[in-house]
């Protein structure tokens, strides 16, 4: 029974996740809060891992929650439910529209939708930061030190190398700072 509910929930998440994986994080958080197996803290760890393992973040998160609720079968079913809307929509586009993909009216509507979705994405990031900063593990403000170090590293790299520090490198730096700070402070 829990499978059916989870499959429907993730089908809806997949259907509404416009604007990439980050925009689907709040939707997935809503679903996860309905299942008492997954704490908010655990979900934050899931997001961190989903970001640092291969594959789309939304797919990784679906697999995570599926595994926690129902093992390998849960992982497979929830992931398939999550990607089914995307699959069907592209299939319909490809079969019926051929190459008439550009539509002026549609692109105007999208230029209104996009800033809203970007706003949601930004607030997800800000809230994640707020959660880590106010969590009980924040001994002696060490989290603020980690944050400042990460931002400084991004800034210096961009000045020196004239290109952006990739997400995967920022994550590795975060792990190193997280371990190091424990010995220093």
């Amino acid at each position, binding site marked *: 029974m829990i499978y059916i509910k989870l499959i429907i929930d993730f089908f809806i998440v997949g259907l509404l996740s416009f604007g990439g994986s980050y925009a689907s994080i709040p939707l997935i958080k809503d679903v996860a809060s309905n299942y008492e197996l997954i704490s908010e803290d655990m979900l934050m760890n899931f997001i961190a891992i989903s970001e640092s393992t291969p594959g789309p973040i939304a797919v990784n998160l679906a697999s995570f929650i599926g595994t926690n609720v129902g093992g390998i079968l849960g992982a497979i079913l929830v992931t398939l439910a999550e990607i089914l809307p995307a699959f069907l929509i592209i299939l319909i586009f490809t079969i019926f529209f051929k190459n008439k993909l550009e539509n002026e009216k549609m692109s*105007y509507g999208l230029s209104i939708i996009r800033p809203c979705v*970007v706003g949601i994405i930004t607030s997800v990031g800000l809230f994640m930061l707020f959660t880590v900063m106010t969590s009980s593990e924040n001994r002696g403000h060490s989290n603020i030190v980690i944050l400042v170090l990460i931002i400084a590293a991004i800034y210096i790299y961009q000045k020196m190398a004239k290109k952006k520090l990739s997400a995967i490198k920022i994550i590795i730096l975060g*792990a190193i700072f997280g371990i190091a700070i424990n010995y220093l402070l």
Partner: protein
Amino acid sequence: MILQLFTMFFKIGLFTFGGGYGMISIVKDECVDKRNWVENEEFVNLIAIAESTPGPLAVNMATYVGYKKAKLAGAIVATIGVVAPSVIIIYLIANYLNDFLKYEIVANAFRGIRIAVSVIVIRTGYNLIKNELKDSDKKPVVIVLFLIYTLVFLSIEIFKINISSIYFILSALLLGVIFSLVRYRNDIH
């Protein structure tokens, strides 16, 4: 062909770190440059549709290329291929995560990683809105919508107000439709 589609998209799924944009260049390498399965312009259109429809880019692209090469069976096989590495890797990690987190060094690393990830997400939001403002003919509208959605959504999360995120996405879609209709009517008169 079916087997080739599966292994190719399995490989793409396995080597795509950090989401959509990195994988665009991998798919282009494999499908456009190396194999000529998809033409260049067709590929640009594909990115445009993939970005304006729900779901991960990787899934959208796998479905399209798979259908083009081997109809429905191809679409299914390519799509399953691209998500299979995620399911396998995450399944393995999820089973051992709690044991790992018991080690202090792992817990500390995760604390840093979580801060890093929130910085990455904020940076993505910043870059996207900067992109949105470039060449926009309605900068004030874009800025106001962006600020309203950021601030309202953030306060709802912080004060734990019980409203589903679904309504936020739906309200954005509704705004898009309303703005389009208004503009379309003005064009007629």
